[in-house]
């Protein structure tokens, strides 16, 4: 809806589409300057941190998976990591590798969903992937083929694609047999080739010329691209344990949101997710992914948020390559899970969800009953940075028509693949100018 009167123009839209969740967005412009930007999140709260209290520590992976159907493995993995930390248990490397394989499946599924179904239509001027398919069916079919293989990994390792059933604190209920894992190799080779074609495809899109001044936060792992664990690190030199990060994150509850905004105490907002991971860990990418990044002209750090789609495609190549190597070297963990005996303690776990760092912290008693739960999803950490991005993007695009500017704003939000179901669907965009 658009209306103008005198020097004021205002644009509002009911519903920002192609994001996960419900929220709204407002931008105010006075005399050619953006004066206020607010990403409002109206997703009805589901109170996970409250309903976990009193439950057994072994229930956290399955309960928290229900926070988000797009990235359930991330919730399961961070919950397991936190509970194992509380109980001072370290799992066997084979269990870790199987977790990493399952997690690669989720990255493949989620990144492909975002690239092909949620984000690419913005660059090509289509309302959705169905319209895109009417013009380029081969592209959409390629995306769906990769996505199917991500889901196949989750089904083979986890039992099902949405809310896998095979994950438990300590590891897995049953280790998949060698044959069923080996059967993933051929599909993964196809997915890897299709992922390489994806990088070439998205690298050819037109990108608005914008550069964000980002403070990146991502996990760092030794000798590999961090996925299922690592130490939280930042582009301005922080390096700490997940527990230390939990101590630094200050969450604010503001009137416009059912999500909590996160800052690092005393410092500026920060960004987690593909741009941050690539900027901090790009040197540990797998060979084909690293090649694809340089072919796409990414450089060591990418600060253009619109090019996040290219970074996501590079991570897609990585996830396929990494999964393939895990498949080729697979030996079933035996036993499939470590024994985890509860003790009265607080445990913290952090893993890299497709959208960014996901932190869980639990306090449990000696019987394993949860006394306190704290969950910090990527989107609450990114919210302030998404707002800063919007300010920048609008400021550089004031010459656009109302409709174009509105679409650009939506695209700027989708650059960060926000999961509002996680943070707390329905973005209402208002641009007020005077």
């Amino acid at each position, binding site marked *: 809806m658009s209306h103008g009167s005198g020097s004021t123009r205002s644009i509002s839209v009911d*519903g*920002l*589409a*192609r994001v*996960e969740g*419900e929220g709204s967005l407002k931008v105010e412009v006075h005399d050619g300057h953006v004066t206020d930007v607010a990403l409002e999140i109206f*997703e*009805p*709260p*589901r*109170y996970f*941190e*409250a*309903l976990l*209290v009193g439950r*057994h520590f072994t*229930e956290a992976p*399955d*309960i928290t998976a*229900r*926070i*988000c*159907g*797009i990235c*359930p493995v991330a919730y399961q993995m961070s919950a397991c990591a936190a509970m194992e930390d509380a109980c001072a248990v370290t799992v066997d490397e084979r269990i870790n590798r199987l977790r990493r394989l399952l997690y690669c499946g989720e990255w493949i599924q989620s990144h492909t969903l975002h690239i092909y*179904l*949620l984000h690419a*239509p913005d660059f090509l001027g289509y*309302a*959705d992937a*169905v*319209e895109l*398919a*009417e013009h380029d069916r081969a592209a959409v*079919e390629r995306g*769906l*083929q990769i*996505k*199917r293989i991500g*889901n196949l990994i989750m089904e083979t390792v986890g*039992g*099902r*694609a*949405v*809310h896998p*059933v*095979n994950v*438990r604190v300590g590891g*897995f*209920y*049953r280790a998949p047999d060698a044959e069923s894992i080996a059967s993933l190799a051929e599909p993964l080779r196809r997915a890897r080739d299709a992922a390489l074609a994806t990088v070439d495809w998205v690298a050819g899109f037109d990108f608005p010329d914008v550069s964000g001044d980002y403070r990146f936060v991502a996990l760092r792992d030794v000798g590999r691209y961090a996925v299922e664990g690592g130490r939280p690190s930042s582009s301005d030199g922080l390096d700490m344990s997940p527990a230390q990060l939990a101590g630094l994150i200050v969450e604010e*509850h*503001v*009137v416009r949101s*059912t999500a*909590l905004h996160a800052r690092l105490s005393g410092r500026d907002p920060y960004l987690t997710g593909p741009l941050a991971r690539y900027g901090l860990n790009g040197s540990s990418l797998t060979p084909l992914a690293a090649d694809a990044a340089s072919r796409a002209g990414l450089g060591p750090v990418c600060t253009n948020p619109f090019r996040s789609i290219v970074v996501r495609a590079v991570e897609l190549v990585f996830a396929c390559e990494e999964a393939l190597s895990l498949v080729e070297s697979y030996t079933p963990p035996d036993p499939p899970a470590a024994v985890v005996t509860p003790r009265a303690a607080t445990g913290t776990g952090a893993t890299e969800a497709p959208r960014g760092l996901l932190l869980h912290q639990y306090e449990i008693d000696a019987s394993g009953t949860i006394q306190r739960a704290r969950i910090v999803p990527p989107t609450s950490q990114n919210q302030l940075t998404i707002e800063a991005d919007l300010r920048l993007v609008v400021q550089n695009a004031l010459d656009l028509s109302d409709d174009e500017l509105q*679409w650009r704003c939506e695209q700027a939000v989708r650059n960060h693949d926000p999961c509002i*179901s996680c943070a707390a*669907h*329905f973005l209402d965009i208002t641009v007020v100018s005077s």
Partner: protein
Amino acid sequence: MSNHNELPTLAVWKFASCDGCQLSLLDCEDELLTLAGVVRISHFTEMSRATTAGPYDVSLVEGSITTPADVHRIQEVREASRRLITIGACATAGGIQGLRNFAASGAYAATVYAHPEYIASLDTSTPISAHVDVDFELHGCPIDRHQLLEVITASLSGRRPVIPGHSVCQECKARGTVCLLVSQKTACLGPVTRTGCGALCPAVGRGCFGCFGPADTANTSSLAATLRHQGTPAIELSHLFRTFNACAPAFLEESVSQGGPVPVTRGRPPTPTSGEEGR
């Protein structure tokens, strides 16, 4: 597509949920483009910027009712929909967020938010059928995508979906999984849980935890007696019945029998949703 405007219309709506059930539609990778050729997807914000005004031939509703605004929105969705189908445990039973129905008023909001007064949220999470007439309920947390395709296809052709109402237990027998309850004395809800998943958990050596909710005829008290006898403590049993389908009547009653707190009555109690069909 020249006849695009004459295609039947499909709308997808979200209430309090995790998006996992609607994702199941996008997870139909082999069928999605074919489906898009036979129906017009008129409202599906997770997938498209474009929306067309109703009425819609078929509406799929995910999620439970937890806010005053959603109490009104579901009425509008009902009015705009010829057939309204609820998908998933949130929409059919209130979901995991239904656990708030057992807590003191306001207690949950105060645990999570510094300023509960900023939050417009109800003290209850209720299924869609507690608010409007529902034409068909598809169960699961998440739903099964093959069942979803069956429900969409049947609804478009005006026939009743063929969705079985028997238990997971029978599916284990069909696929030849050794019974965990008998052989390992594992606490398993398979005998009282609706089929649909393909008996996934027992296949990995894990007891069913009831994510598809109660089967049509669920003898929960007999199962509970067996599990108690085999050594499962009451609190554990109460928790076992009290997850994603905690407010489905059969599971609710059993969790209370096992000593779990009863739902706090606040005007409208959780409404029975045991049948496949609401009307």
